[in-house]
């Protein structure tokens, strides 16, 4: 999933300004693959462990650490934002979930000015509910 210029982004209770985009990537960490005695091809495949990575890219407008400069790796809290795929809609979907910060990176490369990239892993409340979804309740994975 990709959200360009989401609005009202908050991370661990703090507002996050200048967010250019948020991406969510889902990767199977545990894959079951089974074969039969009848041929070379797998007859059963399932993804039993799923990792949800959230990547937040933002412009750095302030000098020094900034609001998110103090993010501790491993810190857990809520990420919420209003998704507006076109960047123009006033009726975007609210997205919310619990995340753990796994990386904070800064760079000066590119022509769009300094940027900060925050990576997180989403945490499910019970292991079966999708950890990131519409505010008010995620769906089953």
């Amino acid at each position: 999933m990709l959200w360009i210029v989401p609005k009202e982004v908050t991370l661990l209770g703090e507002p996050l300004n200048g967010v250019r985009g948020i991406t969510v990537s889902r990767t199977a960490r545990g894959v079951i693959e089974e074969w039969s005695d009848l041929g070379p091809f797998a007859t059963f495949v399932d993804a039993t462990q799923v990792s949800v990575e959230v990547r937040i890219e933002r412009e750095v407008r302030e000098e020094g650490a900034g609001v998110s400069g103090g993010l501790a790796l491993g810190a857990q809290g809520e990420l919420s934002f209003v998704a507006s795929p076109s960047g123009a809609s006033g009726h975007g979907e609210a997205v919310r979930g619990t995340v753990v910060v796994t990386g904070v990176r800064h760079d000066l490369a590119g022509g769009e000015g300094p940027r900060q990239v925050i990576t997180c892993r989403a945490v499910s409340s019970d292991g079966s509910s999708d950890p990131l979804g519409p505010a008010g309740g995620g769906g089953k994975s």
Partner: protein
Amino acid sequence: MSSTIAGQSLFGSGPERFVVRPVGTLFLPPLALDALQVTTTPLTALEVWVVQTGRLTAATDAALWDQVELIRQRAEERLTGTLVLPTGRSFADMTLLRLAPESGVEHGRMVSLAYRADYIRLA
């Protein structure tokens, strides 16, 4: 097509594979008993032993454990009959003796459980 034992398909919900354990004669190799045993000692014919591995699958935990419970009952009853593999190969007079989960229950698109089952042609 899934395997059957005594005409019953117990493992048809998921993939299954079969291995035939050693056949022939059970023997003691030299020095198995003591230092004076210097030659191989044949004992008796090996029992025919077939090991099945695979994965039971279901839509829910309850449906999965229903399958496990049924197989447990059949193993405790020593269900005996012809074991027919998906390949068509068959083994007469085999007894289902044991079902052993090989891991925890996995939850993905399906609920599933890896297992091992043992069939032996009892003397």
